[in-house]
């Protein structure tokens, strides 16, 4: 079926740059009328819902090879680079990534459904600011690799999210890749055992934006005390954040009943969700506190069990 001239005129221009710099320059030239598109799954729903105007120009990123793939990145092989165009399905199924960063695999598992994950990218999920992956990556001290007029530079995901939270809006460039931290410092200490957990509570079990999501990344010393910890939480329209006070409370302590009660109270105090007409703030706070306390209790139990068996678990 041939389409009318009018229909073609209503259609946006779709540009197909083949390198990141080309894409960035194109965006600068067209400016506000252009939108970068990778999987486009979230953008499509926003356009259809009228939340954002359908742009006059789409900059299709799919042909930029440097932004794809998942692999080890540095000389000692411990660092990882996740291309911003890596699909959530790839993040879900990549065996090496899952071994080093089960948090990424688990977060990918609970985002949308498999068919959406075949299109949707990790870069798109992070840049949405409220996606599950941002919470998981916060607990991994991930960095974002940007490209802009000054060249490429990386910055902590937490720094970018802080700016977004303060209303200094907008990405500082084209997101090229995500660099999760391979190991936190103490994890190289012999017999330190590391555990992680990602939990999402929603209005139904699958395929739903989170009411609350939490990510825990914790290492225990030989005595079962917390040697290092990252706790991140998000959900709803809240931009996810690390819970620094709750983290500090646990350091050097064994997760017994007293610590878990104190942690529960600390998360309830520190977590700052945004209510909506369906789910209130108090409910979200209690849910986050329950999930974090339960996750640390389970991690502590698993650490003791693995210690008794004499095998570090990571």
């Amino acid at each position: 079926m041939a389409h009318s001239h009018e229909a073609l005129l209503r259609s946006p221009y779709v540009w197909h740059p083949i390198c990141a710099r080309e894409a960035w320059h194109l965006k600068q030239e067209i400016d506000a009328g252009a939108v970068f598109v990778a999987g486009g799954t979230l953008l499509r729903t926003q356009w259809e819902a009228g939340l954002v105007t359908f742009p006059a120009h789409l900059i299709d990123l799919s042909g930029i090879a440097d932004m794809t793939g998942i692999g080890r990145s540095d000389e000692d092989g411990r660092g990882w680079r996740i291309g911003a165009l890596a699909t959530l399905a790839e993040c879900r199924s990549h065996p090496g990534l899952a071994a080093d960063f089960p948090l990424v695999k688990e977060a990918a598992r609970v985002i949308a459904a498999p068919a959406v994950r075949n299109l949707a990218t990790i870069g798109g999920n992070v840049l949405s600011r409220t996606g599950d992956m941002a919470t998981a990556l916060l607990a991994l001290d991930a960095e974002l690799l940007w490209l802009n007029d000054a060249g490429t530079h990386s910055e902590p995901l937490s720094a970018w999210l802080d700016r977004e939270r303060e209303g200094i809006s907008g990405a500082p460039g084209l997101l090229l890749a995500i660099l999760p931290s391979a190991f936190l410092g103490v994890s190289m200490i012999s017999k330190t055992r590391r555990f992680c957990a990602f939990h999402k509570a929603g209005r139904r079990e699958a395929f739903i934006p989170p009411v609350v999501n939490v990510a825990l990344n914790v290492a225990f010393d030989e005595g079962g005390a917390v040697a290092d910890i990252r706790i991140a939480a998000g959900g709803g329209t809240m931009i996810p954040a690390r819970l620094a006070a709750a983290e500090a409370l646990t350091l050097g302590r064994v997760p017994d009943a007293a610590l878990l009660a104190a942690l529960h109270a600390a998360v309830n105090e520190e977590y700052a969700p945004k209510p909506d007409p369906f789910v209130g703030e108090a409910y979200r706070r209690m849910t986050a506190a329950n999930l974090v306390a339960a996750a640390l209790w389970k991690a502590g139990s698993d650490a003791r069990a693995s210690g008794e068996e004499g095998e570090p678990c990571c």
Partner: protein
Amino acid sequence: MIERAPISADPSAKLNINVNGREAVLDVPPSKRLLHVLREDLGLTGTKRSCEMGRCGACMVLVDGKAVNSCLAMAYQCEGKSVTTIEGLSEGGLTPVQQCFLEEGGYQCGYCTPGMVVSVTAMLANDPSPSDADIEEALSGNLCRCTGYGGIWRAVKKAIELKKEQTG
């Protein structure tokens, strides 16, 4: 790998796509949904229109063998790719998955069935022996408002057994 001009934005560019094994060159806007390309331009109405936001799975098709919500995919994203619809799956007669849906009452009104069949087909192509958790995950993007999923679940389990028998 699709060969593309370094930078181009010709809105009148044709879409080159393989649908159910047949090459097609279509004069469609680049941002048109694949769903509408299939239904309106190619007359393949087995792919169903429902939520149009990637939630229900009624519009599921295979793109290069992977399940994709055709309501989310834009025409330009399918340039040079192979799309298989429910019509393509059953060109040689009912597939074992479809036969199992028939035998186990895996449908009532039937509107979600093409998408369900496509998702199950994609799952079994990727993993012929999925666990219950794998099945739940694979079908988490397909909604049925009639069956309560009991018949669908039985159909999927039967299809798995059938595949095991066929592969020895």
